[in-house]
């Protein structure tokens, strides 16, 4: 749910990175954090376990600049990917403006990808969103690994709505900003539609 503040001339939007455990959601945020100008970002908050698995969420506030005199801020969140944290995932999806689904390209993670995508669609519906129309980008991560599933096959299994896709290697940053840019664009265009 975007927040437009005419007094402070600010617009805040919420983007959630979703996907199975260990697919690279936090890595996406860490890369964005690392590469963003210190003036444009806030502190990155990670609520993680001792073994650095996301427990509740990661949070990164980003100021991108201004549009028509309004400061545009994006709040990036990740969800905990592990199956048993479903209650937390539902909470984080509340009021979301755009979703990035991060899929793990390794063959052995395809089942987890499919399960997570189904879970995303179900949870979006539960929160009152239409999973086929909400701004969404699909990222196929870890493309540098040897045992990856071909993009066309991943698309068939995960991207029935034909959302824009990006191949990525989040560790080195490949595709990370392209993904963010596309989802931000969709979120802003959605605000335009509602205007």
């Amino acid at each position, binding site marked *: 749910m975007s927040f437009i503040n005419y007094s402070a001339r600010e617009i805040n939007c919420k983007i959630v990175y979703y996907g199975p455990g260990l697919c690279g959601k936090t890595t996406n945020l860490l890369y964005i954090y690392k590469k963003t100008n210190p003036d444009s970002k806030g502190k990155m908050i990670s609520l993680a376990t001792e073994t650095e698995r996301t427990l509740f969420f990661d949070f990164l506030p980003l100021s991108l600049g201004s549009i028509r005199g309004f400061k545009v801020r994006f709040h990036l969140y990740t969800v905990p990917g592990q199956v048993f944290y479903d209650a937390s995932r539902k909470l984080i999806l*509340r009021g979301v403006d755009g979703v990035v689904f991060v899929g793990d390209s390794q063959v052995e993670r395809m089942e987890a990808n499919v399960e997570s995508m189904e879970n995303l669609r179900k949870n979006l519906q539960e929160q009152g969103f239409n999973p086929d129309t909400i701004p969404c980008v699909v990222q196929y991560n870890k493309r540098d690994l040897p045992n990856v599933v071909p993009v066309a096959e991943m698309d068939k299994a995960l991207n029935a709505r034909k959302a824009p896709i990006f191949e990525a290697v989040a560790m080195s940053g490949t595709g990370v900003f392209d993904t963010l840019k596309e989802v931000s664009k969709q979120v802003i265009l959605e605000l335009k539609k509602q205007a």
Partner: protein
Amino acid sequence: MADSGLVMHEEEFTLIDAELAKLHQQANAKLTFLVDKNGQLITSVGETKGVDTTSLASLTAGNIAATGGMAKLLGEKEFSILFHEGEKDNIHISLIGQRVILVVIFDQRSSLGLVRLRAKKTSDVLVKMFEDIFVKIEKERGVKHAVKSPFAEITEEDIEKLFG
């Protein structure tokens, strides 16, 4: 969309800010702020220097959301007040009208009793204010282009520029 986005105009913002400032002073608080239930900071009053209010707002909303989840599991509608006690500072968090969270941070210069009392009074006033805001948002949504949104005439180039 599940929720209508929150749109706040200057005059409403001024009223809310004034109400918050009143609470801040009467409760002898250190920092008082309002957060939308989705984690967006609406406004803050007090000692914000050195405090990351954006993160604080997001974590507060996460906190309320998690507590709300616990309430549901126990068959409660919600836990509308949370209190965290620290060595020096304490946080009093209360849910206002299901949409907004009021946070008061205070130290030994105040007391839980005082903060609770004042926060309750402010909540009653703010509930009404936010009800009016949401009614207005709905109304404006019905009348297309009643108030010009900054996004109405946005172009793809505007968006491209954001990413330099």
